């Protein structure tokens, strides 16, 4: 079986939205485009207040190699350029566009036969389209597909695990547009001379596995690998281990193991960027949770206000206590719905009960469950102690930096300790200090 050691089996909640086909949503209200929707340098605004924009028009340009441009997903008038709240709760400079609901578009240049394009041309198309890792990290994709030694890349892995509970956006893409995914993977493969393609799917989606196998049965370069259904199977490092048995630690890159990993929606965006010549304008968002009347999967223009998505899904049937942008394990809790969907918003999860605030932390009984489930193979209970005591030296000695912040330890802890949370804070402090030290 293709898997890794550790991991958990939380309630997956996928049944409530998995059979709902993707619906195109056309936003009505103002669109908000934060200037930083990716890892790397924030964008620079290239439009002015009052300026008319079209669908697909560049509104903010990238400011370096590790950066990614932003395009307007509607037509209308730039209303304001001001700080707006984003999912993390921060205020970030954003472009606000008043939607005229006409969806007048710029002309896109398709490249139906991408085999005629050179490697550099393809990478440049991906870069110009503003494609980033849409699984949540938001790392610019053109950087990912430009490793130092492209010939050493042996595997291009499509991360179709979708191990986060409740999320069904990748599942719907695999059911509805598997050919787009496979073509996108082929485009990526064309960038590397020695690479094979892997579609890694959790075995709770047998229908996807069958469809993808059917589509790739004549392609010797692509194989479909069923993974054991377990969280966090879709974690980049653990996915590489599950499919290739190569293990990388936190200071290595996937390319060090000869691998490149991209998520489903990202690969489809690569396809759109190259074949259709379209920049990244939409993404699939699962609107779900026990508070939503009709949980659904939407194809959402980036910049759409979360309020509109909730309304479109029939509104609330129960008062939500907690709303999470993303999945319940790795997502961000938002304190107000008035934030825009960005390139990395995979889901909007509305829960009537907050399981975190309803239980208080008690004493650690040393049960070892966190050690059993930790995919990083560290000792979360001890790391959390070190973090709470501010003991940096011991924290690093006990491999605290190898934590991938997946949340398994906090999930399983019978004492309801805030393990992931404590470890995460300490890691942030150490990473920030290292960055400072590096610049000196």
């Amino acid at each position, binding site marked *: 079986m293709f898997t890794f050691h550790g991991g958990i089996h939380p309630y997956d909640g996928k049944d409530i939205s998995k059979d709902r086909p993707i619906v195109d949503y056309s936003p009505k209200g103002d669109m908000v485009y934060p200037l930083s929707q990716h890892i790397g340098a924030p964008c620079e605004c290239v439009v002015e207040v009052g300026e008319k924009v079209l669908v697909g028009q560049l509104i903010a340009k990238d400011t370096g190699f590790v950066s990614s441009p932003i395009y307007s997903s509607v037509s209308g008038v730039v209303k304001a350029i001001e700080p707006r709240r984003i999912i993390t709760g921060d205020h970030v400079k954003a472009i606000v566009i008043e939607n005229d609901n006409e969806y007048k578009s710029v002309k896109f240049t398709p490249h139906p036969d991408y085999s005629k394009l050179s490697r550099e041309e393809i990478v440049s198309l991906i870069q110009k389209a503003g494609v980033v890792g849409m699984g949540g990290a938001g790392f610019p994709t053109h950087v990912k597909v430009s490793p130092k030694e492209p010939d050493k890349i042996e595997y291009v892995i499509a991360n179709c695990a979708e191990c986060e509970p409740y999320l069904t956006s990748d599942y719907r893409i695999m059911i509805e547009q598997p050919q787009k995914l496979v073509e996108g993977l082929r485009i990526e493969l064309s960038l590397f001379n020695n690479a094979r393609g892997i579609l890694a799917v959790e075995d709770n989606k047998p229908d996807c596995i069958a469809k993808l196998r059917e589509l790739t049965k004549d392609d010797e370069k692509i194989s479909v690998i069923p993974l054991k259904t377990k969280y966090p199977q879709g974690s980049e490092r653990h996915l590489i*281990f599950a499919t290739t048995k190569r293990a990388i630690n936190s200071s290595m890159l996937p390319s060090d193991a000869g691998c490149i990993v991209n998520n489903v929606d990202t690969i489809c965006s690569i396809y759109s960027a190259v074949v259709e010549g379209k920049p990244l304008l939409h993404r699939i968002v699962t609107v779900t949770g026990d508070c939503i009347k009709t949980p659904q999967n939407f194809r959402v223009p980036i910049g759409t206000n979360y309020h509109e998505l909730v309304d479109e899904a029939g509104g609330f049937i129960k008062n939500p206590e907690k709303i999470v942008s993303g999945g319940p394990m790795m997502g961000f809790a*938002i304190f107000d719905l008035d934030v825009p969907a960005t390139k990395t918003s995979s889901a909007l999860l509305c829960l009537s009960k907050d399981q975190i605030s309803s239980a208080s932390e008690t004493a650690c009984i040393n049960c070892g469950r966190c050690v059993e489930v930790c995919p990083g193979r560290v000792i979360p209970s001890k790391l959390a102690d070190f973090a709470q005591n501010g003991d940096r030296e011991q924290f690093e000695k006990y491999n605290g930096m190898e934590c991938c912040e997946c949340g398994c330890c906090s999930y399983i802890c019978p004492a309801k300790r805030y393990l992931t949370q404590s470890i995460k804070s300490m890691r942030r402090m150490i990473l920030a200090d290292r960055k400072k030290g590096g610049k000196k």
Partner: protein
Amino acid sequence: MSENTEKKEAKKLLKVSSNPHVRDGMNTRSIMLAVVIALMPATIFGIINFGYHAFLVVATAVGFSVLAEFVMCKILKKPVSISDCSAIVTGLLLGLNLPPMFPLWMTAVGACFAIVVVKMLFGGLGQNFMNPALGARCFLVISFAKYMTNFNCDAYTGATPLAVLKSGGAVNIYDMVIGRTAGTIGETSMIAIVLGACFLIALGIIDLRIPGMYILSFVIFILIFGKRGFDFNFVCAHLAGGGLMLGAFFMATDYVTRPITKKGQYVYGILLGILTGIFRIFGASAEGVSYAIILGNLLVPLIEKITLPKAFGKGGENS
């Protein structure tokens, strides 16, 4: 814009916290209650086997453990923690480790020692370096040696099977497996203890790492040093007799006082097996499980130190 923002801030905001946002249903109390349930077969068998006074001993041990914890929490001005049920487990284990006719006031003293000295003074649940029930048992053995080694009761008179074995006598294995022998209240029935242990294993509350290694290494030890060669009866008597089963499944597996690392648990199990073997074969007394586990408890920090796991991507991905 500012007016707009203020209006928004005024409305009810949702709860936020750092990820993850979901949790497993298991909590400390449910684990402790499962252990209590798992100890029920041994407890009920012991009470039926030894009679009414055995029940009083167990009830006193549990009652005074809970009471002692309650009083200590009040004195130390800490939130009262008896609802986590860990004091019940301690009291029950202590009761099962006492002879059936043990005086009740001594039982109460033992329970208070377990909770007050071994557990609460070291910081309460999770902080004790030694199993409280076993700590109290050893305290009682030292303080009231005569009563702690007197296993005479209405049902049985004479020595425990292990003592008989030590002096070269013959024992009935069948009776030992069922539990119809002299001994402490909860240790005699191998069947009842293993039944409870299976329940805990099925629930995933304990695993076989420590008990398995403990029993295996103990068997190997007595095969080599027992001076009986491969004597099946002798090995079985040692497994079924004394506190080995109760100790291996219920006390060596005590979360707080065993190593948290996987490798450390193997080391710990082997260590307990060897120590028990040494105490039983070469020691003055017939029994050695409690001392072996207590000594093992003290070595846990060292064991953990030398068995630090390797992280994923640094050699630990395959274990």
